[in-house]
């Protein structure tokens, strides 16, 4: 089966003048010789400390950036040959938040996800509206359709952004720190939703998170990045190893098993100075 997405020996460096680059990446490569695949219907977790290249990876995968060396393939086709809109019909990114300068309604925001399917149209079609409504139902925000996004709580906005990504009807969903500012209830809901989507619709999911336990819980496979390089790739049990983690994160940890799910959990060994 062709993998949904594939990175083959990808290098990327931000140019020195680029203010957007993290400090550590200014003169060094942000990603070095990165190779991995994401299979269809897989939940693929990407973990690593700050400045390990996780954000850069998302940008490359969504064609915001193009690699300096190597290739990225979507469904077997090189990314460079695809238009941005074509990529957007295959890869849907769920960012952490959206700027709130303008008071769009939830429905307007979710409908934006339909743009890549008909970029030449000025207005969305009835079919687009149906897709949007389904996506809102899937994300559990159907009743918020007429609300302004700047009036929502953080958790509600997260789900709305997810709904927009779902409306893209892509086969691969890329989530960037989906639980970053959510409290427990929403973290749990998020996991439930992702699992349901993956199981019911076969949606491929790439999950970038620095919450190791979330990644371990949800992912079929994990990629551990450090300083732009792949350190480990495999099942959560294989990747989450005390020694490796200690070296990568620079602090002492204990890898244990979740009492209910039996998935690996990572505990920090808090220092007593």
């Amino acid at each position, binding site marked *: 089966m062709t993998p949904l997405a594939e990175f083959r020996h990808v290098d990327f460096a931000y140019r020195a003048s680029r203010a957007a680059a993290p400090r550590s990446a200014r003169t060094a490569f942000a990603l070095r010789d990165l190779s991995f695949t994401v299979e269809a219907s897989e939940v693929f977790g990407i973990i690593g400390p700050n400045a390990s290249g996780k954000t850069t990876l998302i940008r490359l995968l969504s064609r*915001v950036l193009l690699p300096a060396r190597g290739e990225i393939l979507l469904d077997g086709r090189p990314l460079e040959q695809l238009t941005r*809109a074509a990529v957007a019909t295959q890869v849907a*990114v769920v960012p952490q938040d959206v*700027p709130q300068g303008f008071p*769009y309604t939830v429905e*307007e925001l979710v409908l934006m996800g339909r743009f890549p399917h008909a*970029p030449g149209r000025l207005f969305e079609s009835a079919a687009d509206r149906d897709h949007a409504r389904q996506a809102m139902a899937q994300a559990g925000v159907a009743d918020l359709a007429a609300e302004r996004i700047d009036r929502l709580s953080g958790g509600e906005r997260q789900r709305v952004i997810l709904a927009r990504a779902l409306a893209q009807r892509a086969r691969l969903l890329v989530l960037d720190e989906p639980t970053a500012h959510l409290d427990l209830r929403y973290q749990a809901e998020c996991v439930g939703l992702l699992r349901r989507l993956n199981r019911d619709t076969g949606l491929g999911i790439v999950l970038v998170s620095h919450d190791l336990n979330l990644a371990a819980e949800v992912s079929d496979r994990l990629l551990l990045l450090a300083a732009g390089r792949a350190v480990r790739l495999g099942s959560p049990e294989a990747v989450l190893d005390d020694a490796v983690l200690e070296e990568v994160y620079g602090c002492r940890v204990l890898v244990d098993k979740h009492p209910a799910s039996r998935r690996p959990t990572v505990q920090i060994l808090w220092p007593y100075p």
Partner: protein
Amino acid sequence: MSPTARLVAALAVLATATAVAAMAALFIGSAPVSPRDVLAVLGGRASAAPVDQVVVLSLRLPRIAAALLAGGALAVAGVGFQGLTRNPLAEPSVLGVSSGAAFGVVLAQVFGLRAGPLEILGLVGFAFVGAFVAGTAVYAIAARAGGLPVHTLVLAGVIVGIFFSSAITVLISIVDFDRLGGVVHWLLGNLGPLPPAELGLFVAATALGFWLVLHPSRQLNLLALGEEGALQLGVDAERVKRRIFAGAALLAAAVVAFAGPIGFVGLIVPHALRLALGPDNRVLVPAALLAGGLFLLVADTLARSLIAPAELSVGVITSFCGAPFFVYLLRSRTERIEP
């Protein structure tokens, strides 16, 4: 309500209001033309006195047309520019292009640059040349290898605008005492009846600018929520930014060329429309074309009738509306920041 329905409703209301205002403005003015006589002129009756014909058809009608075009152009430029800079408080004058255009005209007025080959250009030509220089400067300063970052665009626009405004101040300080009054008067806005050729050019420029801003208005919606997000949704952000910049600049330049510098319309009208119709640019841009025209028409009608037979500059009225409106905007925005 779907955006198309909202658009149709808004256009219907605005078109009616504009038509009513335009008709009413035909009856208002310093010349004592009775309503019956106005109607006689409009109906093309032979009984219409020649003076009345001149007043209604050569003075009032072209001026109304100029006001509608200038107001519409400014409002559309405002919508585009606010979307482009992701800032609902941006004004097209921040582009720097208006100052460049104004400088071109003042330069021509101060040095009487109307002799010989330059005469063909006319004030309108000087305005466009000035605008072109300013716009190119802004673009050159702001553009990076990758594209057109919005924050540098705003900065570049402000810098270029300040440069040309200062240059205008220098010109004012050396101009002949005799011409000073005229120059200062022009700088307050110079809406007047335009001859058919100029009106035609104005219509063409406005139409083109309108198209440049309207065409990518769906993409502009996506851009308003962050450039990276828009790229990830398939928007060709650089192309959209270039188009909107070109369109807004063309509209701003045209207004200065044909009606002099007029402020605040590009700020007030888009904002008011956004409050009423929501932030969807596909609805706002066409609505702004009508609403801006309506607003400026009303302002101009006031300007030419408040102290008749003397006339106020229309810029005076828009500024008087603008300042309190700005205060209101500021207060309503800060209230929203409270959780």
